[in-house]
């Protein structure tokens, strides 16, 4: 994979790479993608399931319920006045 593609993919994935990492992943991923070319010659199939078994929708009754106390969930979170703390949006 060329250097520009690695940088573009890393930006999309929110990963910052050092110069060494760009060089290493570029070479590793090129090798792996060459191996993936085997897929081009593999037979196709009409089916393309998301899961290896048939799954069915399972819906519960539409009744409100509280599975977990919000205070328990907040226990280990960095919070400010019961709001989760996060970075600035702009």
């Amino acid at each position: 994979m060329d250097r520009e593609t690695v940088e573009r993919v890393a930006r999309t994935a929110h990963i910052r790479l050092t110069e060494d990492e760009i060089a290493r992943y570029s070479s590793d991923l090129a090798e792996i993608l060459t191996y993936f070319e085997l897929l081009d010659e593999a037979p196709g199939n009409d089916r393309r399931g998301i899961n290896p078994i048939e799954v069915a929708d399972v819906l519960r009754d539409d009744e409100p319920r509280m599975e977990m106390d919000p205070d328990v969930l907040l226990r280990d979170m960095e919070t400010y006045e019961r709001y989760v703390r996060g970075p600035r949006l702009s």
Partner: protein
Amino acid sequence: MSMRSTLETLERVNSKYLMFHAKTSDTDPGDARFLFSAKDNLTSKDMETCAGSRILEGYFPPFDATVIARMREAGGKLIGKTNMDEFGFGTFSTNSGLEVPRNPFDLERACGGSSGGSACAAAVFEDHPSLGVSTGGSICCPASFCGVYGIAPTYGRVSRYGLIDYGNSLDKIGVLSSKAGDLRRYINIIAGRDEKDPTSCVQPELKDERTPVRSVAVPKEGVEGLSKNVEAAFTNALDELRRMGIEVETVDMPSLKYAMPAYYVLATSEASTNLARYVGMRYGRQDGDLSLKFDDYFSDVRSRYFGDEAKRRILLGTFTRMVGYSDRYYSKARQVREVVIDDYKRVLRDHDAVLAPTMPFTAPRFDDISKMSALDSYKADYLTVPANLAGVPHLNVPCGYDGDGMPIGMQFVADHWNENALFTMAEDWEKEFDLRRPEVSA
């Protein structure tokens, strides 16, 4: 060894083998009926849960995974969370941000991965079931390297609620133990429908019955590229199976060679979306610089705490899902999965199980692993990946030892939902095979 003495020596044993990241400090088993351990990607109320990643350091989940809750309800006491490759990304348990478990048969060698700590615990402690998780072979590989029995059931047989996802369409929770009978016993405890995981809700009932294996198919593709000692042990094991009255036939499974690339495309695609949730907020590491803009904050935390292999798989999975590439990779990989499933179904019409060695070599030394490229390491999984891709249940049974005394394993694969054939096979094999336990000292 009594439960009390296991607990009393836990600290010392763990400092030698490093099977646990978090562990209990209790020395009194109380009214526990049995002790167990669980891979560290299964959430547990009373123990830190990191999935081998520094980005989750400090995470104490407020709930138990369904499997841990069911083991506790059955009288189990959780004694430790087992070390693993970060998020399950590896074959040797060496891709960890935390501790790397050591093989109980030779401390200079790996336990296999990614459920390496679970296989280590199952080998070292007597009467000890350990819960593992398999995405591409992460139960059978370490079970093979550590000389224990291990089963990954059908995809959907065991609820994944509380599992820290790697690849949602591939992850399966199973059991490792030095006793064959434990596989049946504990899968029966953890299996069954759970409304918190819809994929567990379509399963037929798991009946407690014997289903003897009468014929096995050995795919030609499964006996290529083996080391000499694995080949020899496997040949002897086939003779033993014939002596047990089981028919052995060689078959062609041409789809198997496509399973590897299809698996790695699906696994990394799913992993890269699953790992998007780790941004330094809500749980785990939350020590980023809040004065940064959100893009920079997320990138900073993720770049600092994800390990090398996690970054590689995130990059790979993000790439293969990108516009312009997803038809060639992700969509094709889903078709190939169906082709592999069809191939297993075809062979399993005439046979009760498909059989091959579990790993092409015995547990490697840590210094040899460090010389392997990422692709070399991926390719080591070629025997365990196809069954995982297809979601069919598979079992490792120890079948021999090499000249250095390192365990060798073979893997039986049965049809969807037919775990009983594998339980029965393990129980029958155990009567014929002289299992060696490692010499444990602490």
